[in-house]
């Protein structure tokens, strides 16, 4: 019964999070969904009527079913790999994704400096305040200051210059 309730709560939470607009919340929703599903597999093994396989000569009819556990292990690995990939996808690309046709032909290389502000934009406004780099930390510090993040994507070259001037 407890297992069923947990599965239900996890599914509900997953659905709630997945219906949010923020990408990170969606991914967290998928994490919850994976957990809910794993517990569902566990419950399929009949946890209520089975016990731990301890003792010298355990009776296979009442000891825990190993097959769902093997299923869960496999499912965890797969879900983990895809979640990591989803996180990577969430931080690549830019907020201006709907206008890729406009962005593409301007000839500006999306490598290095140009994409860096976008990368922080992926987590919404909070990225500006919770800056992972303290100033003077490394070569990327100039770009991760809030001034650059506030700047529009197309003008990243100009902003990069002013950032350098500040220093």
């Amino acid at each position, binding site marked *: 019964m407890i297992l069923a309730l947990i599965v239900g709560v996890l599914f509900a939470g997953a659905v709630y999070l*997945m219906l949010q607009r923020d*990408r990170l919340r*969606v991914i967290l929703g*998928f994490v919850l*969904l*994976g957990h809910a*599903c794993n517990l*569902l*597999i566990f*419950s*399929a*093994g*009949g946890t209520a009527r089975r016990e731990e396989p301890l003792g010298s000569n355990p009776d296979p009819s009442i000891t825990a079913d190993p*097959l*769902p556990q093997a*299923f869960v292990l*496999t*499912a965890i690995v*797969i*879900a983990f*790999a*895809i*979640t990591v*990939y*989803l996180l990577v*996808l*969430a931080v*690549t*690309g*830019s907020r201006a*994704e709907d206008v*890729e046709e406009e*962005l*593409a*032909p301007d000839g500006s*290389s*999306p490598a290095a400096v140009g994409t860096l502000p976008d990368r922080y934009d992926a987590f919404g406004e909070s990225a500006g305040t919770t800056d992972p780099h303290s100033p003077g930390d490394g070569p990327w510090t100039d770009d991760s200051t809030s001034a650059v993040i506030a700047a529009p994507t197309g003008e990243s070259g100009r902003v990069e210059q002013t950032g350098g001037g500040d220093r």
Partner: protein
Amino acid sequence: MTVETALPLMVALPIIAAGLTAFARRRRWWTTTLLLLVQVGLFAAAIALVVRTSDGDVLAHQVGGWIPGVAIPFVVDAFSALMLTVSGGLILVCTMFALQVETGRNRFYAPLAMVLQAGVNGALLTGDVFNMFVFIEVMLLPTYGLLVLAARRRGTRASVVGSRLYVTYNLFVSTLFLAGVAMLYGTAGTVNLGELAGAAVEDPWVAAAAAVCLFALSMKAAVVPVHGWLARAYPSTSPAITALISGLHTKVAIYAIYRLYAVIFEGDERFLWIGVVLFSATMLIGVLGAVGEDRMRSILAFHMVSQIGYILLGVALFTPFGLTAGIAYLLHHMIVKASLFLSTGAIEERFGTDRLSELKGRIGKEPLLALAFGAAAMSLAGIPPMSGFVAKFSLITATFQAGWIIAAVIALIVSLITLQSMLKIFNGVFSPTIKGHPAPSGGGTAGPATPAPGAGTAGGATTEVLASAPALPRPTRLALASPALLLAAVSLMLGLGGEGLLSLAETAAANLYDTSGYVEAVLR
């Protein structure tokens, strides 16, 4: 070593080769050679399996030598052997295309394509529902990588957005499928297809659990009302990859639907009407979605949705003839759709866009691609002598015989709209090939709208015109057009030799209609 014990090699071989090629720092001659060797080898092995199973035999191997029911079985019957052959051939042809364009030059193409093939082969061969989930994931994971391989800068951002949609959708559906497998295990106590045979007929709880699996697979196959992702995700990657995955992913899901419904439900007649309703809607809504599209690949993707309705109608009829027609349609469709994606992909690789409005006036004579596209489009619409006619005619006949007159009428109407849509692409892209070059003044957007063929301008001006607006590009070379031509030729051959196609499909359908041979082989 017998044929049975060699079955796991269909999965192991490409994975080992992928592991080897993944070490290469860049694309080298040996990685490409290994890739082609493995793909040719698997294709040849699949043909051998078709020959071996064409008398209705079912071969099975219990991995690791465990007792049947405990071991994971690898099973091959005529249906899976045919699917292995067509998918293997498609991967080979698409690789031929990809190696000529940017996509195949990436060093990750070879390992990813081989793992993809391993997943496809595994999903087609396995006789265990959980294992099927695992192999579908093995098939999907390299695809996520392939989707962002588009090395052209223009494509990268779009392909990231498309990947996000594709990955999240597939993760959701896979989780749903996994939940279905869990419920199946909870209600039936096994996930072995041999032991599950007929379980859904006896126990409604098993039927409900298996239904979750089937609905998840239908979502993977882009059945209406959950078809929108396909039309948005497929056109976002590079053309070579669209062609590659179009023939594989949804089709593996369709294969799984055929297999699970035949084995677990034993073609239970109580639920067939759900399939007929859903798949008729898929036919109609898919084709209507294509009407308003301007991008070639979007049009083709919507047609794919519509054609998936046709293919699955075969399993929803569940008569011997209906299954035969459905399987024939599936094989025909995989070939033809890949051919269409490859011929439009060749255009897109050369001109950088697949929007009909942008292509208008820029394309010169393209006799090879026009031939390939025209033949494949005729086949898709179901015009003799192509394979589409054989498949569609038998499917509609089977639908009439089963008494679903409305579904048959919808299938006929959809054929007409399909033809209209194909003509739209053909007119937009290949009309210069047929009618000669039009005056480019209408097509030219802003800049140098000089009438290129007629104007005998000075040398400098001409070169500038040629450089800035390629008004008279040369036709696509044979090598780039050959994959599409090859598949169109296969479609023609299957159409002319329709008897052979149908008799092979009939053997496959017989194994689905009467699963006793399959079950016996899995549990032997």
